[in-house]
């Protein structure tokens, strides 16, 4: 059981508040994704929950133990797969699994048995007895995950597990995480800046931006709250304007006109679209093109923050981030 209480943040170098007053409660057995752009405070949150850095203020407990006063108990209860490679590059994969098992208090024989089991489970047989530096990115990631699982942790933390993997390996990794979660019943908490990943993997998505939680729900509910996007194309800008005026009457909708195209954002747009088309045809402005898109988590992020996740990713330099948060603090 992970009970994240209020957690103010940690000063790295100066007073950059990377995580500001987070209140969270995650139940045993959940699979949760922290989604947000780089610098949103996802990793910082994870580093606090895994005892790597203490919170500046507030508190958090993981598996029933406080992350500050019960560090040792927390470390016993959790598995951690960081952004880098947990396995030492000069070591052999199997040796690292055994040493990790020993660190968690397994006997020599148990550690070896568990290592052998994980090697088989995670399809590492061909590479477990090779030097870690000679493994591919995907193989290393699997080895790192195996290391995080050695002691059957109650909570497994994965910090951007799929970063740097090709699409094939990313898909494999997602399947692996889902399988492990289903088999072990452990709580799994991961961070990602890939929408598709959060969408495909997690039962619950916590959207983080500028160190704050801005949404916390299932991916399906986050998206259905936003509604579908119906994009209509017209022969001329005048037709588009006329159609837009007519569409304003659709209840609980949002209409945006861009020259000859009109975006209608509405719940259950895919079922309403037939009615909409008939109505517009009757009004003398039949659309020349129709597209209906289910909302993506990117749309959710855009809706919540006013900018798309990809934008936030590429334009936000760390200095922007810090000045923004500082001005917020001052304000």
């Amino acid at each position: 059981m992970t009970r994240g209480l209020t957690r103010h943040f940690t000063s790295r170098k100066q007073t950059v508040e990377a995580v500001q007053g987070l209140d969270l409660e995650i139940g045993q057995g959940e699979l949760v994704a922290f989604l947000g752009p780089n610098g949103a405070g996802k990793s910082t949150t994870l580093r606090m929950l895994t005892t790597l850095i203490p919170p500046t203020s507030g508190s958090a407990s993981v598996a029933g133990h406080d992350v500050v006063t019960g560090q040792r108990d927390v470390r016993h209860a959790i598995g951690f797969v960081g952004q880098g490679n947990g396995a030492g590059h000069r070591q052999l994969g199997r040796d690292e699994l055994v040493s990790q098992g020993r660190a968690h208090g397994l006997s020599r024989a148990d550690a070896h048995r568990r290592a052998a089991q994980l090697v088989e489970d995670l399809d590492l047989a061909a590479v477990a007895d090779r030097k870690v530096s000679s493994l591919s990115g995907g193989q290393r990631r699997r080895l790192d995950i195996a290391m995080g699982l050695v002691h059957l942790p109650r909570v497994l933390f994965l910090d951007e597990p799929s970063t740097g993997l090709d699409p094939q390996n990313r898909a494999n990794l997602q399947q692996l995480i889902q399988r492990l979660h289903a088999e072990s019943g452990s709580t799994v908490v991961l961070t990602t800046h890939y929408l598709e990943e959060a969408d495909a993997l997690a039962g619950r998505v916590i959207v983080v931006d500028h160190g704050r939680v801005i949404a916390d729900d299932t991916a399906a509910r986050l998206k259905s709250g936003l509604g579908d996007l119906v994009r209509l194309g017209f022969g001329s800008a005048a037709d588009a304007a006329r159609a837009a005026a007519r569409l304003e009457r659709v209840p609980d909708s949002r209409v945006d006109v861009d020259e000859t195209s009109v975006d209608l954002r509405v719940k259950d747009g895919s079922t309403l679209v037939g009615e909409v088309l008939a109505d517009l045809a009757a009004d003398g402005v039949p659309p020349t093109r129709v597209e209906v898109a289910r909302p993506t988590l990117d749309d959710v992020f855009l809706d919540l923050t006013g900018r798309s996740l990809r934008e936030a990713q590429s334009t936000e330099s760390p200095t922007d981030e810090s000045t923004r948060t500082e001005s917020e603090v001052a304000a």
Partner: protein
Amino acid sequence: MSTFVSDTLNVMNRELKPVWREPMAVVFAMIQPLVFLGLFAPLLPEMATGGGSALQWFVPGIVAMTALMGASFTGANLMEEMQSGSHERQLVSPLGRPALLVGRALKEVVPMLMQVAIIVAVVTPFSFDLHLGGVLAAAALLSVFSVGVGALSFALALASKGEDWMFWTIQQTLLFPALLTAGVLLPIDGAPRWLEVVSMLNPMTYVVDAARALFAGTWPADVILQGAAGAAIVAAVGLLVGVRAMRRSS
């Protein structure tokens, strides 16, 4: 068995795995001292070294130099693990912070002893008299010394926070003054007063003096005691500083 002991053994064991698997790396790491041995020893005039063969005087110094170099480089291994992420993984494991440092520092003894054995084996056919008991006693002193230097090197790696240039600049800046003022390459006798003072303040001086006496098969109690004290001071300071640095590591 307490957790500190079992954690320390676990860490040491892990650190030794690459040493056992690739023992040649230990030999490569000592090329520099061997080059010094080959090129420097023939230049030493017999009289400067107190009468005996130049090799007899020079070998203990080279052994101490090997210990100092090997142990002071070792932080680079930790640095690599800090950059790759495996240090972070160990910090999240239940391994105690002191064990993470002490286990690593203790491991330094093994490659150091292998190197002493190689140097002694190489020079024994030449004008070098082997006094096995003395060599073993000197090796014990140097083991303590290596643990301290290794711990300091890890502390430096932790303080450098993964910045290679900082680690190497500081390590190189300290390495040669430590070697020279300890009288490893040239005798300090007859040096200017200030240099003598610096030499007297360098704990390695006493370790090297004790190693010279022991390698010559002599057992002057005061010199050996001073050497032991020098090694013990380095070890104590190293472990203290190292454990503190490891506790702060995140």
